[in-house]
Structures are given as structure tokens and as C-alpha cells.
């Protein structure tokens, strides 16, 4: 479903990705691991359509649709979801108001009507319960004053409500204690589905103790340099990234 072909990306004239190839099939959970600065977050942002990222060559296809021709909100409505490493704080916008706007925007693009308030509230309440999110928190302004764990759980809540076709999780494990990590992992596992693809970006193996990947890619210097199964993550945890980082220099 996701095909990234020979992708090269520069940010402010600085090349970050150079000829990256990657594919994620429906039902597949792929992990991307790599050292800091290898371009993992850039890949996540480019898939989501962040401005200021200049694609100098290559293509990104989702279900036969050229994502690079779509605006970020169009990509989202086609099924791309990015869970942010650092979710953005938006003062003055109640979290609940934001959730409703997001869900309804997605529904409208599918030709469905807006959710009624009781229906919306029921969905939010159910999804929040599993993620141990207090409804009181959802009345506060979006991400403002939330702890790191609260922000990440809210990202997973949004993903649960939106039910994306492709979920990209950018360092969702960073800043989480072990309990929060388990809650977040359970949330991701609950969404695993033969029709959905996951791209999980992480620096450490510890998230993959709770979410078993189908595929593990190693990224270094803006490219995928190795691909394997879950055992590759274990090997990386033991030996570090030095072998891969050195290879491409």
C-alpha cells in the first residue's frame, strides 16, 4: 500500500534523505530503527506533507495515489496518520473541539455526515477508557500543560478515533515510563488489522518488546541500509548502530 521510491529530500538546502526505498504492505507493521540524525523523522514528516521539506527526487505512493501531489490535510483524509514525536500545543482550542473537527473533516471527505454529539462522545469515552485518558483532560486546551505521557496517549487516542489506513508513529516511545509505554503499545496492537499498515519509527528496541514488528528496517545517512525480521531489532540493541553508520560513510 505504501511505496517510497528513490526518495531524496533536502531541508533548507541540506540533503537529509538520499535515494530511500521502502514499502509497507496492508496488514504489515514495519519498524524503522536508526541512530539520531539518520533522517527517520524527516521521512515521517515528508510522508505527512510538512512544508519546507523539499523533495528533490523520488515518489511516495499510497494505494496508487501520488501523495506528493496532495496537501497534508488531503493526505490525512486519504488515510495517512502521523503520531508526532512532539505533539503541538494549541492554546485556546479545547481538545474535545479539536477531536470533533478532525473526525468530522474525515467523515465529510468520505461523504458521511457529521457525528451527533452523543455518538461522538460515546466513541471518545470508549477509546479513552482503554488508553487510561481522563475525560477531564480532554476539556483542557489541546496538549497545553499535558505531560509527555499524556501527549503520547492523546496521539494514540486520535489514531484510534480516526482509524487510518497508514499510521506513522514517530518516536512515540520517547519520554514514556514503562506503564505509559505499555498503554500506548496496547493501543497500537488493538489497531493492528489486515487492512492497515504501520510504520513505527524508534531509536530503541524497548517499544518493540511490546509491539512485535513484521519487518525491521535500519536507516542510516538518509537511506535504508538493512532489512530483516524482529531478530534484527534484538541484534541492534546488542551491538548498536556503529556497524551500519560506518558502512555508508
Amino acid at each position, binding site marked *: 500500500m505504501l511505496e517510497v521510491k528513490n526518495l531524496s529530500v533536502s531541508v533548507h538546502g541540506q540533503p537529509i534523505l538520499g535515494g530511500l526505498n521502502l514499502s509497507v504492505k496492508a496488514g504489515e507493521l514495519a519498524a524503522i530503527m536508526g541512530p539520531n540524525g539518520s533522517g527517520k523523522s524527516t521521512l515521517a514528516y515528508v510522508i505527512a506533507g510538512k512544508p519546507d521539506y523539499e523533495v528533490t527526487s523520488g515518489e511516495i505512493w499510497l494505494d496508487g495515489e501520488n501523495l506528493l501531489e496532495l*496537501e*497534508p*490535510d488531503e493526505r490525512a483524509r486519504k488515510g495517512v496518520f502521523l503520531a508526532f514525536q512532539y505533539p503541538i500545543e494549541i492554546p485556546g482550542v479545547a481538545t474535545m473541539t479539536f477531536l470533533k*473537527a*478532525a473526525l468530522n*473533516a474525515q467523515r465529510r471527505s468520505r461523504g458521511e455526515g457529521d457525528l451527533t454529539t452523543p455518538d461522538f462522545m460515546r466513541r471518545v469515552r470508549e477509546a479513552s477508557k482503554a488508553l487510561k485518558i481522563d475525560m477531564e483532560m480532554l476539556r483542557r486546551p489541546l496538549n497545553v500543560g499535558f505531560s509527555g505521557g499524556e501527549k503520547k496517549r492523546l496521539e494514540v487516542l*486520535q489514531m484510534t478515533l480516526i482509524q487510518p489506513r497508514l499510521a506513522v508513529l514517530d518516536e512515540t516511545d520517547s519520554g514514556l515510563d514503562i506503564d505509559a509505554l505499555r498503554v500506548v503499545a496496547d493501543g497500537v496492537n488493538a489497531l493492528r488489522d489486515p487492512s492497515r499498515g504501520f510504520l513505527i519509527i524508534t531509536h530503541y528496541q524497548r517499544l518493540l518488546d511490546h509491539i512485535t514488528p513484521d519487518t525491521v528496517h535500519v536507516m542510516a545517512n538518509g537511506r535504508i541500509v538493512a532489512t530483516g525480521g524482529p531478530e534484527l531489532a534484538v541484534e541492534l540493541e546488542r551491538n548498536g548502530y556503529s556497524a551500519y553508520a560506518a558502512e555508508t560513510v
Partner: protein
Amino acid sequence: MTAHAVLRSNAESTLIKQFEAQGELARSPQRAAAFKRFAERGLPTRRVESWHYTDLRAAMADAAPLAPAPDRTAIETVGRAVKERKKLGAARLVLINGRLIEGLSDSLPAGAAVVSRDGQPLAVDDPMVALAEAMSRADCVVEVSDGAEIDEPIEILHIASGDGALSLYSRMEIVVGAGARASFVETFSGAGPAVQRHALATLTLAEGARLKHAVVVEDRVELHLESQIVDLEAGAELNAFALVSGGTLSRRQLFVRMLGDKAKIALGGLALLDGSRRADTTLQVVHSAPGGTSREFYRAIVDDEAAGTFQGKVIVENGAQKTDGAMKSQAILLSPRAQMNAKPELEIFADDVVCGHGATIGSLDPEQIFYLRTRGVPKDEAEAMLLEAFGGEAIERVEDEALAGALRASFRAWLASRGDRPTEGRA
């Protein structure tokens, strides 16, 4: 020749003729003195420091003819329009062209009354205050008696009636007695693009009085010049807010004196500017007594080639110890040609005070817009959400649910009209 001969601009000459043609009214000593104060100074130019960003003499090519007293037909027409408007509070007063129309107004709730007398002479040193004092034909004085507690707002509708170029003058005086509590909302409405409006309001708060006051400027008036003169005695509290979404050129000036100990003010506003409109808020807050608290919180959204101005001066006089003052002005510019002038000032002559000010001018945060868009929210809607949040934080300080709700509805209507308006690069 008289001393008036030194005045040169067309508008100034017309104003002199208009005042002299008022006959008996012009001969009242209070109005004559006020007009003399105006005539000595003339229309302010940018050389007057407090008018630096609004060159009124240049902007006012001429003074429009004085609006006539409304006739029966005009009163009936306004009456029908007013009936359609949702009432904001307990009672409504309707003024047409600056004159209170009793037939369209409600009787006020117990504890409040319209009093038949002229407004008090004003000691504010500003030519436009003097002009409005001299030219206003019928002062509207509302008194809230000592200890009265009025929960629901009293609405004052200032309606313009008549076609083409007109000058309107109005003068309100709101006097809140000791320990009394009341809230008022003044709405300026109905003026067309050739109307020049001069509005004067004095708010006088006796000891321990609490007043909430909101102003809405929503019509397409050419010129909206409004002066608010506020005096607070000991322990009095004022919360005053203004939503400005109309007017080609608007200038709101506030002169606040905190005369008694431990008085409290919270001033705020939201200016919504598009096209080539100009809006200027200039305020002066004087702490004359110890233990006072002042908060100013103003926000502006400026689009197209519009320009906003905020000038705030807080003066803490010698002896006003333990003053606690904080002033903030924030603006979002939505277009590269939009402009905001912010000039906060503090003058402190007491040594034991806590005072601060801050001003920010920026654009919408692209990171916030991107985040919303990654959830499927279209760009226009994402921008509207952020603008609504930005303005909403100013409105929420009104601390009166009925008033805040009405202000929010006007604000949303402005945001919605922004989406409908053709802008550059968008057909």
C-alpha cells in the same frame, strides 16, 4: 477675526460653523467652554503624541452635516429593526442619532434609572473629548443607586439613521452608586460608510461599585471616534471590553483614573481588521491611590492592508504604593501588508509597585496549522480554529456568560465572512 481664524482645515471650519449654528445650545457655558478647548487645539495630527498613529486632521477631509433628530418614520423603521434583534439582557435603551428614544426603550430594572440632566463637565485634556462634549445634543445619563444589584446586562443600542454623509454625536454617562453592581453593553450599529460618529461615555464608580461594560462596533461607519472616561473610587471594580469589527477608521480612547484605594480594573478588547481599515486603541490609566490593580489585555487580528494600533500608558503616581499593573497587547497579522503598531508605556513615580507590560506581533504558527492539517482539517478551517482560539482568549475575560456569548457570536460571524471574502490569489 476671532481666534477661530487660526484653524485651517475644511473640517475644522465646518465644525466651527456647525457649533455656532446650534444657537441656544452653543450658548450654554459648559458647551461653549468645551468647544473653546477644542477650537484652541483643532483636530489632532500625528505631531500630538497620543495621536501619532492616527492623523485625524489628514483623515477627516471635511465634517459631515449634523444628523437630524429622527422623525416619526425613522423611529418606526429603527423600531422594526430593533425588534428583530435578540435582546442581550434585562432591558434595552435605544438611541437614534445620539438621542434617547423613549418609545423604543424599556424601563430599566429596579435600582437603575435614566436621569434627566446634562453630563458633568469633563476635565480630560483631549480635543476630541472636548468636541463631543460641546456638540452632543442630548446627554443620556443612567444612574444605578447605592447598593443595587442588577444581574442581567442593560443594553444600549446606538443606532444611526439617515442616508449619506452624517455626523453623529452622543454622550452617555453611567454612574454606579456605592456598593452597587451592574453591567452594560453598548452597541454601535446601522451607520453607513459616510457616517462620522463621535461617542463619549463617562463611567463613574463610587466606593465598592462593580461594573461590567462592553462595547461592540459592528457597522461600516467611516469614522468611529469614541472616548471613555472612567473614574473609580476606593474598592471599585471595572471590567471593560470592546469588540471592534467595523469602521473604516476607528479610534477608541480610554482615560481611566483610579482615585480611591484598592480599586481594580480589567480592560480588554479584540479588534478584527480587514481591507484597508484602521483601528486605534489608546488608553491612559492613572493610579492615584495605593493598592490598585490594573490589567489590560488587548488582541487584534489584522488582515489584508489593514492597520491596528495599541497605545497604552500606565501612570503610577507618587503615593500609589502597592500598585499591581500588567498590560499586554498581542496581534496576529494575516497578510504581508497588514500592520500593527504597539506602544506600551509605564510611568512610575512610586517605589513599591509591581508593573509590567508585553507586546507581541506575529503570524499564525505554521507548526500548529500543520498539526491540525495532519488530522484532516482543511487549511481554511485550521486557520479559523486558531483565530477563534486567539480572539476567544480575549473574550473570555469578559466574565459574563451572556455578554461573552454574544461577543463570541459576532466574532464567529466576522471569521465566517472572512472565508467568503475574495482575497488576493483567491478568486
